[in-house]
């Protein structure tokens, strides 16, 4: 054991996206020693992909206030969001924007010098009245600007980075305290035990669960898998947002702006389908409504193409000038990936996995909370989560565009502030038992080929590539936009079989340099955990709410189901109440969600 490197920090942060870097900056500026581990170079984190922007009621373009923002977020969540956390986030939003400005994010400006704000879906003035304009953006590269500014600030504040290190598992003692994590260097395979008084998980989402996704390959839900293996349940995993217009078969996002400019969807009969589903809002109805409409058309045989497996987004009637001027990015994306110019031909699109609403349960201080006996939310000592991997829950059943960048910044900072207080009371490192370390090291070798052949001779060997492909297909077939009991039961069965087969995965490549095969095996294992939680929670929830649509239970059922799901390896499903009481204002009681 002596050869294993050990390092000590006040705080270990796993993940260097916007959530992780906002937290690390706050901690480093408070003169704490903070380590940030990231499997890719920090500025390659997925936050870089966010183009649309970040919500805050600044009222620079149209009247606005945080209370209206709160109402929209509660309604958007289909009343599954926790109203204390939502109030906290909406109140904190303007400050989060001004802080970013101070860190160097070049927000787009109005002529009067104030920060420009654009209108996004689900935003209203006056509790459901006229459209609001609440989204602040740095041109079409907001995520990039945020990530780079935060990274530079962290370098200045002397945050310690472990770039291209992969976190495998949390280290947990017999009393349930989290004491750090086992990580390894992707370049040379060297294991490092990072001991920390507090650990924050900020590993982002799990879009790679589905065959068609807008998410990059790195979004494999690693933190969610780590949490589950540490006995922590995952919350509301059945709520996965599908964006209606991803490029069919490939997934790249075609922004809502395309429909905003006058684009519309047609089915295999050449019919403008949204007129039937949303006569008023048509193609600009909310994301879940449009995604469901496309799925119904395809399921009922009115898809396009030889396999009738997509619909078409028509833009050509707008004319080349409009497309070139207002949607240049989309045009280039289509030419590059489809070899077609949307000024001439329609774009094949399909609802595409986009955002993980569920995740590791936390309170509004970022503390990870689990049910213990009669208490539904008991903090796990030393463990925090923030960002897309966490479920605070501000998005509930459906996230509003522009609320995720806000979420990661507000709760990254809140978690750091709580950690600072916690460390005042918990000044010393707990001694980690050698057993805990040696078990973790042993477990980190779980995909290595045994040097001794198994006694039975040739056991079945599974490969990561095959299992990953099958898993993504199963999730897409059985647990995407539309769900029903029979399909979900079959899906659960298939996912469980895949999890069993995962046990037979062995990696041929035993080298230590850039052993990406090993990384991919750990990632797949994490995806499997997410898949189990997602599909079991989806089967159990017999209602339709937000992004979770059951054909067999088409209505929302507040009496039985206004509660959060919790799924763990140990106990299967459990539930806890939604926090309907805000911090200072009246609750918003559930109402039918019409736009």
């Amino acid at each position, binding site marked *: 054991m002596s050869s294993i490197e050990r390092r000590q920090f006040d705080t270990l942060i796993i993940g260097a996206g916007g959530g992780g870097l906002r937290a690390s900056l706050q901690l480093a500026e408070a003169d704490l020693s903070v380590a940030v581990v990231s499997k*890719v170079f920090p*500025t*390659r*984190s*997925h*936050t*870089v*992909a966010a183009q649309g922007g970040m919500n805050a009621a600044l009222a620079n373009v149209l009247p606005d206030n945080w209370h209206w923002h709160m109402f929209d977020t509660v309604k958007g969540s289909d009343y599954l969001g926790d109203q204390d956390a939502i109030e906290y986030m909406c109140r904190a939003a303007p400050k989060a924007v001004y802080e970013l400005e101070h860190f160097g994010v070049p927000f787009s400006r109005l002529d009067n010098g104030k920060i420009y704000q654009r209108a996004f879906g689900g935003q209203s003035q006056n509790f459901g009245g006229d459209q609001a304009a609440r989204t602040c953006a740095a041109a079409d*590269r907001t995520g*990039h600007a945020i*990530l*780079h500014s935060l990274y530079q600030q962290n370098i200045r504040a002397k945050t310690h980075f472990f770039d*291209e290190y992969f976190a495998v598992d949390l280290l947990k003692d017999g009393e349930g305290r989290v004491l750090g994590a086992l990580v390894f260097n*992707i370049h040379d395979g060297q294991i490092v035990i990072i001991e920390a008084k507090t650990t924050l998980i900020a590993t982002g989402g799990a879009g790679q669960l589905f065959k068609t*996704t*807008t*998410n*990059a*390959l*790195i979004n494999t839900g690693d933190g969610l898998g780590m949490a589950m293996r540490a006995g922590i349940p995952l919350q509301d995993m059945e709520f996965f947002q599908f964006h209606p217009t991803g490029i069919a078969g*490939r*997934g*790249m996002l075609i922004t809502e702006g395309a429909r905003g400019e006058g684009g519309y969807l047609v089915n295999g009969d050449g019919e403008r389908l949204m007129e039937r589903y949303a006569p008023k809002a048509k193609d600009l109805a909310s994301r879940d409504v449009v995604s469901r409409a496309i799925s119904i058309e395809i399921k009922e045989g009115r898809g396009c193409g030889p396999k009738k497996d997509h619909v078409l987004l028509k833009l050509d009637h707008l004319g080349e000038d409009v497309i070139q001027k207002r949607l*240049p*990015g989309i045009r*280039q*994306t289509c*030419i*590059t*990936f489809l070899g077609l110019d949307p000024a001439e031909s329609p774009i094949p699109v399909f609802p595409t996995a986009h955002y993980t609403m569920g995740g590791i349960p936390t309170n509004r201080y970022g503390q990870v909370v689990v049910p213990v006996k009669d208490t539904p939310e008991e903090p796990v000592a030393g463990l925090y989560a923030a960002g897309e991997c966490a479920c605070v829950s501000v998005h509930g059943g459906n996230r509003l565009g522009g609320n995720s960048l806000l979420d990661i910044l507000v709760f990254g900072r809140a978690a750091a502030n709580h950690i600072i207080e916690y460390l005042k009371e918990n000044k010393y490192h707990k001694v980690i038992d050698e057993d805990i370390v040696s078990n973790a090291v042993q477990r980190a070798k779980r995909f290595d080929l045994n040097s001794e052949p198994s006694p039975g001779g040739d056991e079945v060997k599974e490969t990561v590539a095959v299992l990953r492909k099958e898993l993504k297909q199963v999730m897409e077939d059985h647990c995407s936009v539309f769900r029903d009991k029979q399909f979900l039961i079959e899906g659960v069965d298939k996912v469980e079989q895949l999890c069993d087969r995962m046990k037979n995965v062995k990696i041929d*490549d035993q080298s230590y*340099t*850039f*052993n*990406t095969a090993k*990384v991919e095996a750990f990632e797949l294992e994490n995806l499997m955990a997410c898949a189990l939680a997602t599909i079991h929670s989806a089967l159990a929830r017999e209602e339709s709410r937000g992004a979770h649509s059951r054909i067999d239970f088409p209505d929302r059922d507040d009496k039985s189901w206004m509660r959060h799901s919790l799924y763990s390896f140990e106990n299967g499903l459990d539930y806890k109440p939604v926090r309907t009481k805000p911090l200072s204002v009246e609750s918003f009681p559930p109402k039918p969600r019409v736009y």
Partner: protein
Amino acid sequence: MNSKSIIETKTNYRWQCRRGMLELDLLLNNFVDKKVDSLDEKQIQSFDMLLSYPDQALLDLLLGNSVSSDSEISKLVSQIRSTPLS
């Protein structure tokens, strides 16, 4: 390249081509799978240089929204863009 260094280069590249955007993942990995073995020393240098760019700059180049002033990079970008996606 000899076969060992090809494998090492490929796995190294595979990680460097894991980026924050799906568009980059697809274009870069496709290129590594199909073309990296046939690159000469100079092209390898250009590819290393390209991979050191920030994601947003890389996206602008690979989608044709901007053009590099370095002719070697610019040639490589055309090669990546013209490698058929599987």
